[in-house]
């Protein structure tokens, strides 16, 4: 059972602030004090917005005093991954190429947070351009896991995960392309969710891989993750891929339990590649058992093509990224290394501005799309994607939700996996298949593993299945053994 104090949850804070019981300013100051204490060692933030947040909190308090309903996240501090555009506020993607860039517009989700009454405390660190699983690829230094600062928080949304885990904010936004919300959530012992592709607008999210990227919530509780997701989800006319269907009321279903639900433990995500730690596998089995004890029907299910997911992902995502990152050329914004000609300026700017992992992926992606290789690589990977979708659809005919570990391992020491890119990529083996399918998936803390570090269990659901997914997540949360010491 998650022993989080309700007065520190977003739900609790919003209720207290809206009722006047607490002031938004006071809530903010409590969080800023915690940030003050530990940010030096954790480095969750690229940019702290203390002054802006105070002004905003004071404004909210004034409006609430005047009787206004400021929204469902009234006075709730929130941290935003630094690949979300915030007008007039530095947005860097943790890259030198965007160091100092001030977007002239807000991401749609940022506007919705504003309308919901939230208070943005800062922009959080990430692996450069969201490429990585440890936040060690940031151009501004890594973020450290609050539970053990010799270890990584996971990535790419490591800063946001750490911010919530360290109590810097009750909620945060990250982005997930191949697991970049779920994996750091698991490694930091918090809840992290990725919606169905298209549920949350990508307008203003600096793109990594356009057919995979989704914004999603971090929180200490499933309820808070639901509250945040509801506040930002829903159709956006600025995003042509955004789903028109109305977003469900998630919180209504949180207490329904799992009686009669069919839960499938994915066979291919129990071992094999990725070197799954035995404790991780054990916690996952216990999670399945807990659901069974609560009335679910649990069985093993095969999603055969999921074993191809890692390879397909590392052809598709870099290919799309190679195109998305072409715009970083020194012409209109960001870093410019000026040379005698525009062509040489492109070369010098991009060489100086991008880190090694970003360059690697750009080159890999360029290769996968290049003349003579498209069919063998990108084209083939898109067909594998269809196979994965079909295998999931077959599984969902017999099961309502699927279960797996979120990550093959608990948080690893800084520097442990940086020597060989492939070793780092293997962290995503559980999260990638649902990303390729565009299905919703989330990580819920469920006990601890080696070195008393948190383990996360992944719940997956079919497209548009957020309601059921959150329902099962809530049940897992209720049944979870004691979490890692904070």
């Amino acid at each position, binding site marked *: 059972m998650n022993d989080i104090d309700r007065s520190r949850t977003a739900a609790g804070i919003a209720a207290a602030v809206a009722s006047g019981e607490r002031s938004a300013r006071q809530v903010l100051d409590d969080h800023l004090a915690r940030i003050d204490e530990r940010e030096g060692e954790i480095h969750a933030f690229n940019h702290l917005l203390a002054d802006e947040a105070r002004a905003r909190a004071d404004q909210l308090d004034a409006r609430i005093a005047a009787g206004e309903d400021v929204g469902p996240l009234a006075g709730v501090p929130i941290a935003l991954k630094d690949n*979300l555009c915030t007008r007039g506020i530095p947005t860097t993607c943790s890259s030198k190429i965007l160091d100092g860039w001030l977007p002239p517009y807000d991401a749609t989700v940022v506007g919705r947070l504003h309308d919901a009454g939230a208070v943005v405390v800062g922009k959080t660190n990430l692996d450069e351009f969201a490429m990585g699983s440890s936040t060690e690829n940031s151009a501004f230094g890594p973020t450290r896991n609050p539970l053990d600062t010799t270890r990584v928080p996971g990535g790419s949304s490591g800063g946001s995960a750490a911010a919530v885990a360290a109590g810097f904010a009750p909620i945060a936004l990250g982005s997930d392309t191949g697991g970049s919300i779920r994996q750091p959530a698991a490694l930091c012992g918090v809840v992290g969710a990725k919606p169905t592709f298209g549920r949350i607008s990508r307008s*203003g999210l600096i793109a990594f891989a356009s057919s995979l990227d989704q914004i999603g919530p971090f929180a200490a509780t499933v309820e808070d993750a639901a509250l945040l997701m509801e506040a930002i989800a829903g159709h956006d006319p600025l*995003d042509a891929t955004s789903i028109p269907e109305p977003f469900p009321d998630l919180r209504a279903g949180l207490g329904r339990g799992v009686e009669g639900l069919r839960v499938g433990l994915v066979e291919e995500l129990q071992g094999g590649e990725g070197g799954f730690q035995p404790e991780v596998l054990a916690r996952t089995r216990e999670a399945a058992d807990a659901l069974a004890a609560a009335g679910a029907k649990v069985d093993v299910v095969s999603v055969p093509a999921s074993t191809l997911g890692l390879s397909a992902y590392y052809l598709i995502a870099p290919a*799309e990224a190679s195109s998305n990152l*072409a*715009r*970083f050329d020194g012409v*209109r914004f960001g870093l410019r290394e000026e040379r005698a000609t*525009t062509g040489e300026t492109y070369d010098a700017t991009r060489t100086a501005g991008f880190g090694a992992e970003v360059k690697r992926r750009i080159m890999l992606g360029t290769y996968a799309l290049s003349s003579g290789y498209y069919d063998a690589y990108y084209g083939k990977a898109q067909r594998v994607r269809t196979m994965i979708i079909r295998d999931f659809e077959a599984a969902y005919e017999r099961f309502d939700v699927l279960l797996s570990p979120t990550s093959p391992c608990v948080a690893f020491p800084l520097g442990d996996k940086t020597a060989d890119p492939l070793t780092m990529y293997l962290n995503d083996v559980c999260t990638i298949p649902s990303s390729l399918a565009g299905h919703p998936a989330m990580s819920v803390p469920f006990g601890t593993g080696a070195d008393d570090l948190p383990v996360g269990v992944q719940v997956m659901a079919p497209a548009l299945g957020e309601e059921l997914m959150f329902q099962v997540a809530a049940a897992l949360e209720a049944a979870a053994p004691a979490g890692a010491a904070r």
Partner: protein
Amino acid sequence: MSTTTLSDHGGAFTELPHGYRLVVGLEVHVELHTATKLFCGCPNQFGDEPNTNVCPVCLGLPGSMPVLNARAMELAMRLGRALQCEVRPSVFARKNYFYPDMPKDYQISQYDQPTNVDGHLDLPDGTRIGIERAHIEEDTGKSTHVGGGGRIHDAAYSLVDYNRCGVPLVEIVSRPDFRTAEQAKAYVNELRAILTATGVSDAKMEEGSLRVDANVSVHQPDTPFGTRCEIKNINSVRSLGRAIEYEALRQVDLLEAGERVIQQTRHWNEDEGRTHMLRSKEEAEDYRYFPEPDLVPMVPEQARIDEIDAALPRLPAERRSALADAAGRTLPDESVTIVVDRDLDELALDAVASGADADRTLTHLQHDLDPAQVGNVSAENLAQLVQLETSGKLTASQAKQVVAEMGETGKAPDAIAAERGFEAMDTSELESIVDDAIAANGDAWAKYCAGEQKAQGAIVGHVMKATRGQADGKVVTQILEQRRSA
């Protein structure tokens, strides 16, 4: 330069020196007449202050996303149907390359699934030009090269304006069916007429809303087509003709000197009257096309296409046929083409339907009526005027003057004729004037009787002077004939 000949099967072709034949294909870019750009709500407007019609989308700022303009899609389909194309389901694709007037460093275009395929355009002379495809793509910004006479290869630096960036374009790709420069020019004129008649585009080459690139090659008869060169920077129909002719001769010279034509893009210089190659690229461009993940497929419904067909206005080719038919000609000739071009064909058809002689009607419309004054001329009046002429009550030259005044004043022809005192002369009165003229021009009469037709000029001139121009020249020469053979 070269002669135009008719081949055995009736199609014209250009004979180049040394027996070579010309082959041309045209790529025409058309700016669509929409209020806003293709993927964003910025105004689609020519001539505004630089960079004032821009937003995150058309500037390609990080995080921005395209959303398709419904009217652009509709106009593209309308254009396709006007060109007899098949309208198909389509997918947008990214064309990746670096250039400063292209902010994303990729252009959103269509690749292997374009909106319109397999159409044709019939030239006034009856030649059918195949149209391979007409696809939708976004326009780029405009660069001004500063220093070095404004030419790109001598510039000190460049300035970029993105107002035009994102304007909707349709690229119409013809098959290499042109065999003469005249055909190419006729195609562009015909295309312009279709574009303006359908409201798809302003189609003004001088404003850049119609741009033409020519692919030119030469070959010996009954051999495969030669290597083609693409000619850009053609800014008028006249330049198109000159550029094609120059390039064809350039290629013939090369081949006759034993060299190969190298496939390349060349730039037409209007002042110098020649094409020249720009800096050559080391490698051919690899555009790495892939489906645009931020846009979804377009699947037009048949009902929509039927609506578009039903709403198409009568196109110039059809109008020329209709007028040629009504005028008893098998093919449209110059007067038919001009009358349709000036939108005078309805007037002509109505007049002919009321019984007016078609030849005289067309002649007067072509030569004697200012198109701007057509509103003053009713079909009844035109028909009446032609009747007066063909019944002999007005001479040809009198009729000409009456038509001109009809245009200026809108008055009826009989009123004008009466006011001016135009009445055809009584024949016996005319005969006696002719006899006087014969008597006064004895030498001329003698020569004329001896067979010199031209000698009648002096006598006819005398008659005209005596009648103050009101005699009908045809009747006078008839009288002289009669007198001579009497």
